[in-house]
């Protein structure tokens, strides 16, 4: 399964739907998309990882890189993920404390709106 990327606006927040495997081969495409969005002025991002089947440290690096970029513009990057196998990787690397991780896109957007 290759990586499939899609994005749309929802309540003023850019939602990026990721499907498939994020690894050393496919992660550069996600990185490019995130850079592209930030360059276009999208600083409020939600990355929906519900359909991600595999994530490695390269993928984590790209997400952290995206977070740094939006933070530079006082933006945000939240994640949506309920899969234990993916969440485990965030846990063992301590990144659960760096990212806001939510059960659904709606919850991620709600949490972001209420923070403002």
């Amino acid at each position: 399964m290759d990586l499939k990327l899609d994005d749309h606006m929802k309540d003023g927040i850019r939602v990026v739907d990721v499907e498939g495997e994020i690894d050393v081969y496919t992660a550069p495409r996600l990185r490019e998309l995130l850079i592209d969005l930030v360059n276009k002025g999208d600083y409020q991002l939600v990355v929906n990882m519900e359909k991600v089947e595999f994530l490695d440290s390269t993928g984590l690096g790209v997400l952290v890189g995206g977070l740094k970029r939006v933070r530079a513009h006082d933006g945000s990057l939240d994640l949506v993920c309920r899969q234990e196998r993916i969440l485990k990787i965030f846990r063992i690397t301590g990144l659960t404390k760096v990212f806001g991780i939510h059960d659904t896109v709606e919850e991620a957007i709600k949490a972001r709106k209420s923070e403002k």
Partner: protein
Amino acid sequence: MVELAFTPLPAHVRTARLVAVAVARRSGVPESLLDEVRLAVGEACSRAVEAHRQNCPAEPVKVELTDSGGRFEVVVTDSGHGAAPADDLAGPEMIPEGTAALSQAGAVPGASAAEAHNGLPAALGNGHGGLEDGFGLAVIAELADDVRISRTPAGISVCMSWPSSAR
């Protein structure tokens, strides 16, 4: 034993992962551990590919998968000599400093204005959106049941193993 050698291209890392999981399953590694095998082997191959690309792009990365004495063992050997910093040689007990910083990254990002990198721990990110060198090895150390990382004359060898029930 199953032996695999592949050109150091990121696209082949997925193939190595698939082979590793297939052999692990056949060796009787419990289903609940296969995700760990997949990720750990992927991380080891990713760092080997990177080492080769920097130092010897023409040489293949080698992966050996063996099943004996109730253990499924994977050895990923690279020839990217000199590519690994000393920190990279961390075993489970000596996880790179970056990981310690990560686990202590409890502070809510942005909570401290003084914190560098927009509130992210310094270990996170090298400006290219990647994580510090050695991060993948730290992940392996958490995932494999037993890990040994050693320097060979040619490069680095990562040996990982999990329990299996040889049939």
